[in-house]
């Protein structure tokens, strides 16, 4: 049956159901909803990619804003760490959003497919360091007060942290901003490795601060989509409601869900959705 022949309400309802499931999976796998939403909804729903990317940014933004207060209060996100990097990321995310809306859809779709497949590979290979050792604080990081102590509730200890390779991190977050804006992806998948592996930030603080950073970077890019008219409430609202309800269920399942299995499911989803985006962009599977 042709998508256009179906009654209009089928699609927002299906969107709600899919984003509800994505919300559960995203929490269990520790990824933002945007990275799953854009390739899956862009690949398998009838909506144009321009609107899907706008919705993806708002979806990721809503999740990041909602999680932010608890992370900041609990000391698991650091304003001092995120704020300087957020300025660079938000400027480049504006550039990415403008670029994404200016480039031909087939090019953006193809590049999205390649990016999603690369993210799947990154997740497969992912290395993490709970508490990176051998951090030699650099002058820029010290000048920006990128250091502190956070309380790890799991171990009951206070963990002192500092950063290094701050200049490289500015460039990395600049690149992440472009990708976030261009493809409408939340960028947690990239933020965490940069904080943790490049800058030497403890893993839990990296994850928490990534969420806060994402809220700033995605806000800038989201405004470009809003002002260009690329935000359709019939796509955005059910997606946000679905993913946020799903995230609540996901948070409850967190203790019992097998993390390794969920991670494999997410990687499989990314591979299928990335391949679909790539083939759609190349015109081989429309």
């Amino acid at each position: 049956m042709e998508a256009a022949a179906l009654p209009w309400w089928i699609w927002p309802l299906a969107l709600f159901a899919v984003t509800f499931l994505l919300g559960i999976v995203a929490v269990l796998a520790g990824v933002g909803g945007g990275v799953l939403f854009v390739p899956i909804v862009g690949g398998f729903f009838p909506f144009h990619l321009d609107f899907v990317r706008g919705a993806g940014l708002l979806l990721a933004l809503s999740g990041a804003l909602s999680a932010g207060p608890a992370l900041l209060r609990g000391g698991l996100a650091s304003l001092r760490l995120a704020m300087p990097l957020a300025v660079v990321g938000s400027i480049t995310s504006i550039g990415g959003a403008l670029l994404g809306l200016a480039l031909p859809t087939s090019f953006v779709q193809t590049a999205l497919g390649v990016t999603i497949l690369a993210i799947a590979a990154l997740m497969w290979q992912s290395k993490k360091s709970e508490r990176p050792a051998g951090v030699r604080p650099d002058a820029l990081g010290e000048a920006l007060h990128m250091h502190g102590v956070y309380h790890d509730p799991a171990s009951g200890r206070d963990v002192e942290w500092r950063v290094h390779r701050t200049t490289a991190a500015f460039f990395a977050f600049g690149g992440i901003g472009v990708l976030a804006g261009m493809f409408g992806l939340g960028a947690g998948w990239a933020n965490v490795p940069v904080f943790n592996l490049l800058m030497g930030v403890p893993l839990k603080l990296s994850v928490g601060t990534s969420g806060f950073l994402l809220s700033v970077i995605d806000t800038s890019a989201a405004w470009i989509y809003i002002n260009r008219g690329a935000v359709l409430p019939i796509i955005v609202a059910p997606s946000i409601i679905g993913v946020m309800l799903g995230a609540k269920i996901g948070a409850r399942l967190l203790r019992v869900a097998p993390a390794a299995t969920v991670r494999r499911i997410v990687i499989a989803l990314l591979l299928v959705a990335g391949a679909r985006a790539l083939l759609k962009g190349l015109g081989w599977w429309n």
Partner: protein
Amino acid sequence: MSDQHVYARWLDWGTRISLAVLIAAFLAYVFGLAPAALPLAEMPRFWTLPLERYLALSGAPTGWGWLPMLDKGEYQNLVGVALLGLVTVVCYLRVLPLLLARRERLQAAIVAAQVLVLLLAASGLLAGGH
């Protein structure tokens, strides 16, 4: 109270209010309590189109042009969306005086720069909206 806790409190309330407005507006829109500029039954014709073509055919506004159209359901939804986009600006503006009072000039300059970037993005000047 630290600037981080102040930020968290404002973020919490700002996000709650924004999402509540968005959900209420969406329910009014989708259940026909608020009249839509484009009938919902016709949306499948529009949501498959590239942005430029959608704008040309639907007559949908760009930039802040939706503000005078708040009697229409879809544009009432944009109030919630815009609030989500302004939460971070408000939180940054709230911590700015705290940083200045502590003479943390570098941090305050970073916050001010971020506010300018966000306001520039929101203004519509960069996106060509009016």
